[in-house]
């Protein structure tokens, strides 16, 4: 048994804080480039208007709203996973929990920007705050997102306090003076007294419970924006729990991908092992089964009900969106189930592949929830031009989508320069350290 000392922990988990590797610069550069293309696309959109997007009179929600739902889902999944791992004191949580917390906050910061891209009259945005209508689900969403953002920030910050204190006090590594000063402020004078420890643990427990509840409520609210709307395919009572399950599914997928990405870049192989991938993979498997069940239940009841517009919508899904539908609702669920379900397939590489498929499948699932419904209005489409009848995203929308992914990466990498991506304090108390 190799025992990892605190000194080693601090050294090995803070490499990116004390120095910057070439890989870091390379990856950061790629992300910045993609982000810059996104900014150029945004300038085009502001300059020429929404005509540069694929959105028209009927399909007024396109890829932007898909991305909004997707990122918000990732965020809520991160909150749920980190909250549950913390509350249940899972022995293997230490190397994973910080990633989940970061996914929560970063996705939550990015998601709402896609709403801004989608709105034609941004100047009217302050009206949402100046003249809120409590009875509008959009107002619920605004309140919910702000509440969630605060909660997740507080939870993340609470979980970082011990690490900040450790980095403030450590003499094992050389940290730049400005960072030391920053840690002194951020650590809030935490020195690990019994009282401080008790206060911190209690606050973390309370916030962990809160963010689980908030994540469920907030994502349900987002689902209700669809559910309370009389549109084919949307007006469904199952949408709240369905969205929550789907969010956790995508978030678990992203967690696996992020674990692998940063494990490689930051050389965390010793801390993030196959066991962690299998454990998170099993979580993915369970959620995939639930998600598959919900998907089946949603479409079966719609199909069986034979409501005219629902029937037209389902026919459209099986004709115009056949490949996307199959990928999102069949392969995106079955492949993760098979890969993680069969023991001999459970390698790190395979689990990551399953996670990528799950994540992409979920994005397409969001796409086929939003777009085909809007292409199937109750009143016939009045404009005969093809782009009014059928939505296709333009390079502007794809660029901003890619920019969203890039900014996620940029935030993750910037955070890694200030805070360890694997929680040192959690690792210290974890039985994992002893076992290894």
């Amino acid at each position, binding site marked *: 048994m190799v025992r990892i000392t605190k000194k080693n922990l601090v050294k090995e988990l803070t490499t990116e804080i004390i120095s910057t590797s070439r890989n870091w610069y390379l990856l950061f550069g790629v992300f910045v480039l993609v982000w810059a293309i996104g900014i150029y696309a945004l300038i085009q959109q502001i300059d020429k208007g929404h005509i540069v997007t694929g959105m028209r009179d009927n399909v007024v929600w396109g890829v932007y709203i898909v991305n909004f739902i997707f990122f918000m889902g990732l965020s809520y999944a991160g909150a749920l996973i980190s909250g549950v791992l913390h509350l249940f004191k899972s022995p293997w949580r230490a190397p994973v929990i910080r990633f989940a917390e970061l996914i929560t906050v970063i996705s939550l910061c990015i998601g709402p920007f896609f709403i801004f891209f989608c709105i034609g009259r941004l100047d009217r945005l302050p009206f949402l705050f100046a003249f809120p209508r409590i*009875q509008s689900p959009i107002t619920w969403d605004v309140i919910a997102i702000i509440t969630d953002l*605060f*909660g997740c920030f*507080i939870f993340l910050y609470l979980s970082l306090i011990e690490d900040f204190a450790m980095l403030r006090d450590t003499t094992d590594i050389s940290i730049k003076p400005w960072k030391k000063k920053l840690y002194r402020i951020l650590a809030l004078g935490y020195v690990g*007294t019994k009282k*401080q420890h008790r*206060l911190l643990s209690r606050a973390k427990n*309370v916030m962990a419970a809160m963010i689980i509840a908030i994540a469920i409520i907030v994502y349900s609210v987002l689902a209700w924006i669809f559910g309370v709307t009389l549109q084919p395919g949307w007006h469904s009572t199952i949408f709240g729990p369905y969205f929550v399950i789907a969010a956790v599914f995508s978030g678990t997928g992203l967690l696996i991908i992020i674990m692998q990405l940063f494990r490689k870049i930051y050389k965390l192989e010793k801390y993030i092992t196959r066991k962690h991938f299998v454990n998170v993979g099993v979580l993915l498997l369970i959620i995939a089964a639930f998600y598959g069940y919900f998907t089946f239940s949603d479409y079966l009841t719609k199909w069986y009900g034979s409501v005219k517009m629902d029937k037209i919508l389902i*026919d459209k899904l099986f004709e115009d969106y056949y490949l996307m539908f199959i990928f999102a609702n*069949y392969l995106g669920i079955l492949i993760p189930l098979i890969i993680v379900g069969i023991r001999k397939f459970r390698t790190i590489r395979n689990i990551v592949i399953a996670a990528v498929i799950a994540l992409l499948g979920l994005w397409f699932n969001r796409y086929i929830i939003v777009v085909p419904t809007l292409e199937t209005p109750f009143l016939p489409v009045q404009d005969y031009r093809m782009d009014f009848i059928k939505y296709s995203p333009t390079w502007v929308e794809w660029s901003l989508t890619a920019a969203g992914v890039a900014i996620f990466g940029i935030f993750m990498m910037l955070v890694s320069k200030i805070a360890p991506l694997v929680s040192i304090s959690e690792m210290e108390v974890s039985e994992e350290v002893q076992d290894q």
Partner: protein
Amino acid sequence: MLSMLPGLLVLQTLDAQDAGGDEIQSPYIEFKYLKNTEGHRILDAKIFLAGELGLIPLEGLPVKFYTNYEMPELLGEAITDKNGVAHYIIPENVALPVDEDNNWWFYAEFEGNERYEMTMEELTVMDVNLRMSVEENEGGKKIFLEAFTVIDSEKIPVSNQDIFVFVPRMFSLLPVAEGYFIDGEAEVEFPDDVPGDEDGNLTVIGRFNDHWQFGNVEQRAETTWGVPSSHKVAESHRALWTQIAPRWMIVTLTILLAGVWGHYLFAIISMIRINRDGKRSE
């Protein structure tokens, strides 16, 4: 695997529908006779398919109606409506031949086409005259019925036969009371608890219903015997468009938000206390 099922089911149904389009199908016919309050004699022939999804009425099919068993004579023709019913009123001036038992014989036939096979049905009925009067007194609400047949100009009262009293409801006639004919007369007590419209108006129907000998023969009377009931639905405004949100929504949201932000406050206070304790420790 579960998620594959909806797709398979849809494809399977589409296949079944395609296959069904080429075959000649065998419809069924349901043939009924009705003599209504005005004394009109009506023949109804309903044509339908019986499938796994239930009975599917067939619209637009011509049905021919005949009488005279010995030497069938065409009475007339009618086209089935969207409910699959071909509705034919026998003109009053038509003298219908009777058999040795004093029965009329009717025959309905759909001759078939390229999609559906021929189908037919026959029935025999004896003409009966039904009269009805309603009376309300201290003894309650009473319906008096009289029924007789006429054979060789002789009036013969109906005996030992059941008669039912119905009220019309949304989809069908609801039986509410039953009587029995003795020497051509029956007395039926009408129940007190049958809902009517908001003024208590109620149509009462005395009827031989699918009777083996008389078919359907009915008499209707308008009464005020119903229990007045209001079917007005309170107008409900969609909360989304109102000026002010419903109170329950404001209360729920306030409680939820206060609960959540209260916990945030607790966490923030904990952080302040950590900071204070740290300063004290220094």
